[in-house]
């Protein structure tokens, strides 16, 4: 007799079975609607998918686990944020210069998290396969969480420090913030497969470890318990996002041989775009962490040359090679952070964060980390500027820079073969001349000129009178930049005055 024993519990399904139930067979085939009308975006990029069910999330994450562990992450994070605020954690950071990295973070990175939320919500609707759709939907929720937790964390610093008060407004207007904004808008206006190659693969898998891993470890080292906590909380989702990036690439490559050249072209493009965006991170790591862990160069070697090398070695069996111009990035690693910081130093009057010339101790560290370039090229520059500053002639660059039509960064990078010559490329298209910072950006334009000739370039827009007026103060008002507080050097800023006040209060307590 096979009477079920009421006391015997049903066998728990295995992880593989649970994931299969979530992602297989719940969908239906439409009968009275054309499938192409339901999923209008999956064909036009030329990617061919024969079997959507071949995609599998290798973590096999199911809804119940997702909500359970995300809730746990939130509880842990908010406990730390509360504790940090309650215990005046802002007073225990290494130095108030560090806060300037957070100003860049909240204006340049957090709005990207929100843009990523929108992008993944879109592709999470438009993929035909349930596996990738669910992975994208999880990620859409993650990205919204990242934007929120970053705003919540950094809002505490906004009570004390300048430049943190209007990040989303600034993101849409401030000249250097058009770099991250244009990066993401380029990705989000592409098709769903290019979007995933851009964001999930090139950005998340190949590049963001450089932002969220060594920089966050640096935040911890500089006493910012709140930021390291949101950083690692976000990064724990990122491990899943990176995996989605790698899996979707392998999925496209396995599904049809014709997909290989399309995917390679996207990898080339989005490696270069992401790498250019990271110039700001290079500068944050080398110049804006008062206590330093590793240099940009070391991080690039660890995460791209070694980590990325292993990844592309693995992908070579599908016919994928390292991204075009990776050797240029290698040549630039000795210069990247120094060229970025010295550009911002010259435009400190027009930026929503403070700059400074590096201390002697920092320059010694740079010389050790960058033996091939720092003392030869960059120390003389800082010595010159420091002397000018001491003589009351602090150097500001009052010209408006030539921006690259693609990455929108001022064309300040040098030739990969000659660090004393500025690299510029031009191209005439429909009778108009366009300028680029590099062969990488030039090639991206050449492939889709009709997309990039529409770029909203801040300098052009200022000159056309679309940014609040014709003078720098008018433009800065239009940015909502609080002039005299947010901009100029750290020395002499209200941030410095506040910090020194806290430090002297502490010394008085110790002395008494």
């Amino acid at each position, binding site marked *: 007799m096979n009477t079920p024993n009421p006391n015997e519990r049903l066998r728990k399904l295995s*992880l*593989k079975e649970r994931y299969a139930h979530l992602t297989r067979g719940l969908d239906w085939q439409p009968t009275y609607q054309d499938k192409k009308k339901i999923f209008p975006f999956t064909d036009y990029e030329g990617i061919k998918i024969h079997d959507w069910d071949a995609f599998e999330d290798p*973590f096999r994450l199911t809804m119940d686990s997702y909500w359970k562990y995300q809730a746990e992450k939130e509880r*842990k994070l908010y406990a730390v944020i509360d504790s940090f605020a309650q215990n005046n954690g802002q007073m225990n950071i290494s130095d108030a210069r560090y806060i300037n990295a957070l100003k860049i973070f909240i204006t340049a990175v957090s709005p990207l998290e929100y843009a990523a939320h929108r992008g993944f919500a879109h592709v999470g609707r438009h993929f035909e396969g349930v596996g990738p759709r669910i992975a994208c939907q999880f990620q859409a929720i993650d990205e919204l969480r990242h934007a929120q937790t970053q705003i919540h964390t950094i809002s505490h610093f906004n009570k004390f420090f300048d430049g943190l008060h209007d990040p989303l407004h600034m993101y849409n207007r401030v000249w250097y913030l058009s770099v991250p904004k244009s990066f993401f808008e380029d990705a989000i206006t592409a098709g769903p497969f290019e979007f995933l190659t851009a964001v999930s693969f090139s950005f998340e898998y190949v590049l963001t470890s450089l932002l*969220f*891993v060594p920089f966050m470890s640096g935040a911890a080292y500089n006493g910012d318990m709140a930021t390291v906590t949101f950083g690692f909380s976000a990064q724990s*989702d990122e*491990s899943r996002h990176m995996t989605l990036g790698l899996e979707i690439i392998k999925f496209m490559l396995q599904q049809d041989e014709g997909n290989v050249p399309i995917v390679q072209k996207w990898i080339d493009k989005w490696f270069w775009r992401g790498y250019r965006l990271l110039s700001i991170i290079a500068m944050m790591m080398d110049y804006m962490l008062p206590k330093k*862990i590793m240099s940009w160069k070391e991080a690039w070697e660890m995460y791209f040359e070694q980590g990325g090398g292993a990844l592309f070695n*693995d992908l070579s069996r599908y016919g994928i090679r390292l991204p075009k111009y990776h050797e240029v990035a290698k040549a630039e690693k000795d210069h990247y952070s120094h060229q970025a910081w010295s550009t911002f130093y010259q435009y400190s009057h027009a930026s929503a964060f403070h700059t400074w010339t590096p201390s002697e101790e920092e320059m010694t560290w740079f010389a050790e980390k960058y033996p091939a370039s720092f003392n030869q090229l960059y120390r003389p520059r800082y010595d010159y500027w420091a002397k000018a500053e001491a003589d009351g002639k602090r150097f500001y660059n009052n010209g408006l820079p030539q921006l690259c039509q693609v990455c929108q960064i001022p064309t300040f990078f040098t030739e990969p073969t000659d660090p004393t010559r500025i690299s510029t490329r031009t191209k005439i298209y429909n009778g108009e001349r366009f300028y680029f910072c590099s062969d990488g950006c030039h090639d991206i334009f050449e492939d889709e000129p009709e997309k990039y000739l529409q770029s909203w370039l801040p300098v052009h827009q200022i000159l056309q009178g679309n940014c609040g007026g014709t003078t720098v103060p008018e433009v800065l008002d239009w940015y909502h930049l609080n002039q005299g507080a947010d901009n100029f050097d750290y020395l002499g800023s209200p941030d410095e005055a506040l910090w020194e006040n806290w430090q002297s209060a502490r010394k008085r307590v110790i002395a008494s």
Partner: protein
Amino acid sequence: MTSNVSITLQNTDDGRGIVAAIIADNPEAVVSTYPAMTKIDCPSRLIMNKTSIEQQLGREFDLHELNLTMVSISGNVDEDDDRLLLMWNV
């Protein structure tokens, strides 16, 4: 050429136990400690066993809990009920 797979974990109480379990199960693992995090590299393949982690933590451990501690990974992932594998296939 042998490529390293890699995992980075937070320096938390759970994180320390997981690192100890990984070291016990992967003799070739190389551990680097940084502020707030630990990076582990291993040639070609790295395994994280549920039972080893449970032994270290002294409690039941669902591998999906790694979500709370993991900072970054490098390598192809395969997870089931008993173990999480990171590997390069070449």
